[in-house]
């Protein structure tokens, strides 16, 4: 792979950048959660040992502009968050009490970013989905809406 500067070579060698057209991952998993109440709150994700033991490569949020309904575990569906509501939410990837990455939903929303992924290389065991959470930082009323996060990961 050609490079244009020693800085870019360093960033590539240390895993800090990647060509945006590179293969993202070899599998995806959807993690979704229904918002139970209105108002400012932290919403923890359910545990997911499969993702905990996989290498995460990218995370995206799906709004109702791309997919109107998200799937509940019981087979029913709920309406996804609206595109306009994305600025009211922030996602934090964590492990134990450490916050690895804290990112507004708009950064993880691919249509907003002209299709670009939010790359995150987190090795198996370096993150814990059950310790990760979504913060509603705006006071909007979104009770009953489903948050659909798509994790792109590499199967071990």
């Amino acid at each position: 792979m050609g490079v244009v500067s020693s800085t870019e070579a360093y960033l590539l060698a240390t895993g800090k950048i990647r060509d945006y057209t590179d293969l993202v991952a070899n599998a995806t998993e959807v993690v979704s959660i229904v918002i139970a109440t209105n108002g400012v709150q932290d919403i923890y994700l359910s545990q997911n040992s499969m993702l905990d033991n996989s290498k995460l490569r990218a995370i995206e949020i799906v709004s109702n502009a791309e997919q109107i309904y998200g799937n509940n575990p019981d087979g029913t569906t709920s309406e996804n968050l609206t595109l306009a509501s994305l600025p009211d939410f922030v996602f934090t990837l964590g492990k134990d009490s450490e916050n690895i990455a804290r990112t507004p939903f708009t950064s993880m929303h691919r249509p907003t970013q002209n299709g670009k992924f939010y790359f995150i290389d987190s090795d198996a065991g370096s993150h814990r989905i059950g310790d990760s959470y979504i913060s509603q930082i705006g006071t909007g009323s979104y009770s009953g809406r489903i948050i659909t996060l798509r994790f792109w990961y590499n199967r071990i």
Partner: protein
Amino acid sequence: MYFCENILLEMNNIIVKQSQLVTATIDGTPTVNRRYKFNDIPNLSRNNIILYGIEAYSASQLTSTASGADVISAADSLGVTVTLKDNQNNEFIYQMPYTNLIRSNNGGFVILLEPKVINLTDCYVQINNALSLADGDQAVFNFYYDFV
């Protein structure tokens, strides 16, 4: 990807190692040319992180900060610049327009930096036009970093 003479240029985007939202508060009546230092974050402000990417947010991308403060609006962001200092006190990014750091303004690419040990609380935003900025508004950035 495209070719420029004999050099292969890649279109690289950031991979997040660690990220943290950092803020600078417009404290008091917004005043042209005044500098507003970044707020202290104890685990990032000990010259202990290498910054390699930065992203800014207006209220169009993030309605408020974790502390509940208003984020500066997209219209007001046109009157704000950003200066970043390293641990040698060099202003390696000087008066960069705030809007240039908003990811969606750059086709989804995060602004990449030559990795630097950063002095967080010496970095600042500066107002060059107060527009409708208000006391308490916050400039919000996502720092993409690795530990020293």
